[in-house]
């Protein structure tokens, strides 16, 4: 199983760019990196997924170096509403097939606090 390590907490201020790094030294060839956001009393919500290099969508960017042993979620110009827990998930697709199922591993999460 690919174990992930994230900082426990981070602080930022409104308008700043925030980068959260996830370490996954034993990532497997077929594993993807996925990030989720979770607000209190809610289930996690998908942010972004990638395999290598850089992926960007309307809310975040994901940077993955060539060795894929780490990844960085980048949130541009954060606001107070970005205060949440951010989870790094490493794993393969979860489909039928018994032993072909790739177990999905969540990190412990990073508590991001955005200050005014």
């Amino acid at each position, binding site marked *: *199983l690919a174990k992930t390590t994230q900082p426990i907490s981070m602080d930022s201020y409104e308008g700043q760019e925030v980068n959260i790094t996830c370490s996954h030294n034993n990532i497997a060839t077929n594993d*993807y990196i*996925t990030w*989720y956001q979770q607000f209190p*009393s*809610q*289930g*996690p*919500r*998908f942010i972004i*997924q990638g*395999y290598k290099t850089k992926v960007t969508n309307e809310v975040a960017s994901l940077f993955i170096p060539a060795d894929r042993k780490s990844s960085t979620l980048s949130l541009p110009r954060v606001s107070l509403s970005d205060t949440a827990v951010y*989870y790094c*998930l490493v*794993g*393969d*697709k*979860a*489909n*039928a*097939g*018994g032993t072909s*199922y*790739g*177990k*999905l*591993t*969540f*990190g*412990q*999460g990073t508590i991001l606090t955005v200050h005014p």
Partner: protein
Amino acid sequence: DVKVTQSSRYLVKRTGEKVFLECVQDMDHENMFWYRQDPGLGLRLIYFSYDVKMKEKGDIPEGYSVSREKKERFSLILESASTNQTSMYLCASSFPQWAGGPGEQFFGPGTRLTVL
């Protein structure tokens, strides 16, 4: 909008009771998941189902069983609840992904289970 609903937001049970946690999704997803979430441990996968009547163990299946008799419904069963099963339980669902990683999981709001 994808909707994943869980039968209860809060549940209090006694040690030794049989507990059923129900999850229903309305998007015709093949995959369904049960996680538990504990402080400092993040989300841990209990069981996964990729089709009706099909299931696979996750990282921490001990003390739990699951049932999937209909595509939209995935039940988590605690045969004899114990205090160490006090936790937040999250259900999720997704489409199967035949390429390109595990894809997006849609989470329910969670059930906070307390076992006394």
